[in-house]
């Protein structure tokens, strides 16, 4: 920060409380605590291979959570993220396997499809004034159905597209540093996160994303075309879902049309754990990444400790409630 305010001097945490940084700190501390806890409980946990497995498991949910962060900062919500991801994977399958297009075109088609669907959601929300919850609930079902229709309810395999599985599973980093075979999927997650962070922090689109969530009417009365900007944000989030679609299809080397439902809730959970306010106006990509990592570490760690999968879900649910409660308690204190 360029300037230290008087208030900052009086209360060292006052500056942090802005933009949910305190919650982010809390989330980060929880992540570290989880890592330490699990390493003490099980020697297998801290293995490089297990760490990489955790990162790999974070990649798809992380990318979706980045998309969800954008929407949630505007004060909206997107329930169609999961099925949109699947829809984009199916589009990639159609382009690559059915139409036999080159790899890059298939990827571009998936991302374009995501952006288009995001634009549709954005239009419903911004132009037609349908509440985001309802608009994207509708979109969620439409996309789920379309994925099944287009694929004929069967998975589409990418066996004819050599290299497609390498998008997620290959490791460019591993080729340079063989000791650190971090999969490309993770690399892509970080690139997406950095790009989204930059957009949020440094561009007009990002500034309006926060402004819309903070007070949409005031922004509109400032002469800003709020509808158009909101549609752009939804389209951007859709495009990011397209990337998630490519990632999951590449990891499974197939587009699974029945998959996808439930992913949106995991993404939203990561966003919330990361300190982004569901009422809009506040949030960070870094927080979301930490949130996604916490969920992946938790799932992985409990599995390493041989806790039944059913219980893993219970714990995740409890963590979400705890995270939001901690955030609210903090807000109450600082007003």
């Amino acid at each position: 920060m360029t300037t230290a305010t008087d208030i900052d001097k009086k209360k060292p945490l006052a500056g942090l409380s802005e933009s949910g940084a305190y919650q982010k700190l809390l989330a980060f501390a929880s992540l570290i605590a989880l890592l330490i806890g699990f390493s003490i409980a099980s020697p297998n946990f801290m293995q490089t291979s297990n760490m990489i497995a955790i990162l790999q498991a974070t990649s798809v949910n992380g990318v979706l959570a980045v998309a969800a962060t954008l929407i949630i900062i505007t004060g909206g919500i997107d329930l169609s993220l999961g099925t949109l991801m699947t829809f984009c994977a199916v589009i990639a399958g159609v382009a690559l396997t059915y139409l036999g297009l080159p790899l890059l075109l298939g990827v571009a088609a998936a991302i374009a499809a995501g952006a288009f669907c995001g634009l549709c959601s954005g239009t419903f929300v911004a132009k037609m004034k349908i509440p985001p919850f309802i608009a994207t609930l509708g979109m969620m079902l439409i996309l789920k159905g379309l994925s099944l229709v287009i694929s004929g309810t069967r998975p589409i395999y990418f066996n004819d597209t050599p290299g497609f599985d390498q998008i997620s599973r290959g490791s460019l980093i591993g080729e340079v540093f063989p000791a650190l075979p971090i999969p490309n999927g993770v690399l892509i997650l970080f690139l997406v996160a950095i790009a989204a962070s930059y957009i949020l922090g440094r561009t007009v689109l990002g500034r309006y994303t926060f402004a819309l969530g903070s007070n949409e009417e005031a922004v509109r009365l400032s002469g800003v075309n709020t509808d158009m900007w909101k549609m752009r944000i939804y389209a951007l989030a859709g495009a990011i879902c397209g990337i998630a679609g490519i990632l999951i299809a590449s990891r499974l080397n197939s587009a699974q049309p029945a998959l996808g439902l439930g992913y949106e809730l995991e993404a939203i959970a990561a966003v919330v754990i990361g300190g982004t306010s569901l009422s809009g106006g506040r949030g960070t990509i870094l927080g979301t990444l930490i949130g996604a990592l916490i969920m992946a570490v938790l799932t992985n760690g409990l599995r390493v400790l041989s806790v039944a999968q059913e219980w893993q879900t219970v714990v995740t649910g409890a963590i979400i409630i705890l995270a939001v409660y901690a955030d609210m308690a903090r807000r109450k204190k600082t007003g």
Partner: protein
Amino acid sequence: MKKLVDMTGIDKHFPGVHALKSVQFDLYAGEVHALMGENGAGKSTLMKILSGIYQRDGGDLEIEGKPASPTTPREAQDLGIGIIHQELSLMNDLTVAQNIFIGREPRKSFGRLDEAALNARTAEIFASMNLNLDPKTLVGSLTIAKQQMVEIAKALSYQSTVLIMDEPTAALNDAEIAELFVIIRRLKAEGVGIVYISHKMDELKQIADRVTVMRDGEYVGTVDAAETPISTIIAMMVGREVNEEPLDVPDLGDAEVSLEIFGLTRGKEISDVSFSVQRGEILGFAGLMGAGRTEVARAIFGADPKDSGDIRVHGKPVSIKSPKDAVRAGIGYLSEDRKHFGLATGMNVRDNIALASMDMFTGSGGVLNDGEISTTAKSYIKQLGIRTPSDAQEVRLLSGGNQQKVVIAKWLLRDCDILIFDEPTRGIDVGAKSEIYKLLEELAEQGKTIIVISSELPEVMRLSHRIAVMCEGRLTGILPGGKDTTQEDIMHLATQRKAAMQVTGTTQ
């Protein structure tokens, strides 16, 4: 006369603030005791201690001669203390009676509600207030004034002997205020003691017996309402004499006409409004609440659609369909409700100033130049005297007057030369008010065109070079500014209802 309340040496600390410093206050049966002071003077804190919402850190509180320390609003109610908050706390979807008896509904066996008893008891209270209202009416369908009456009825239903009213007339028009005063006088006659918090000086003279003034958490003094001149009370509030400078209406001669409105119409709210404003002029808009002034402003600005009407800016016709079009034409609108319509309160000062002008700071690929935003914001902070620790401060932490200046900076940066101010000093301290007035005058001198909508007649008369008066969606006349126009002249036009106009046959 019986002393109902006696507070002495009341002390209250909040983290980092000494909110009340040995404050005293008393109240007799059958009197209206006004409590005055700028925002933040400690009036509300003192009354919250009396009504059990806060606990005092020191001092004594006696109610009807007995020491008391209510720790909850419920305990205070049992002691006969009722409070009517500034923001009404009624449930719109329940009936009047259900609202009044919420939480203590008469019951029949097995927990069934006794609606008949509920309505009967409400009707009794209304009868005692001489208020003609059906207990079964939904609260949401009532006017704000009637809702206020319901709040009073609710307070009375607790057998209150002390009634605290926090700015009860803030949202009422003159007729409704008169209605409220009738009720207050009746309660007074019945021996209820009333604490009356208000910023409106003229009301004091009408309704209050004594006035206690507070400043910065301290007791300043108690004076007789009838005998003390208003200037003395204001001086007590601000700690200095406020001298009302007479308005000097400049001769604009043939300065360019910057904004012309022809036949602006929308539904029942705006009918055939036409006027024009010159460069450097301050045009005031007076009228009672609901006269359609805000609606006219929002229609000109494109915030709400209009049925018909033409707008010319600097002589050229412009089509305004959205705020975006208005801003492009150089029109800025400063809403009365800054928190909802003017500011992104969660964002910082610099982003709010730049909110309407982001494209000025955008490089290739939509990347923002934050350094430049900060530099620009700082220059406006200096120019307008915005008191903020830095340009990175969140605007919600600023005072009302400084928030208003942030909104003004937003429009100046956007290069808007026609500025419409809707209630520019609502919720702003007396001291900061005159600062805003000076700022508006300076803007006009610099050649901006200023439209000021205000419900406070002294404010309209203090600022306006000409005064447009509205009634029921029509522009009933435009009066010259300055000392030749009296409040009575304005009120005459503001109450010129349609029927009356047809008789005289004069339109504007």
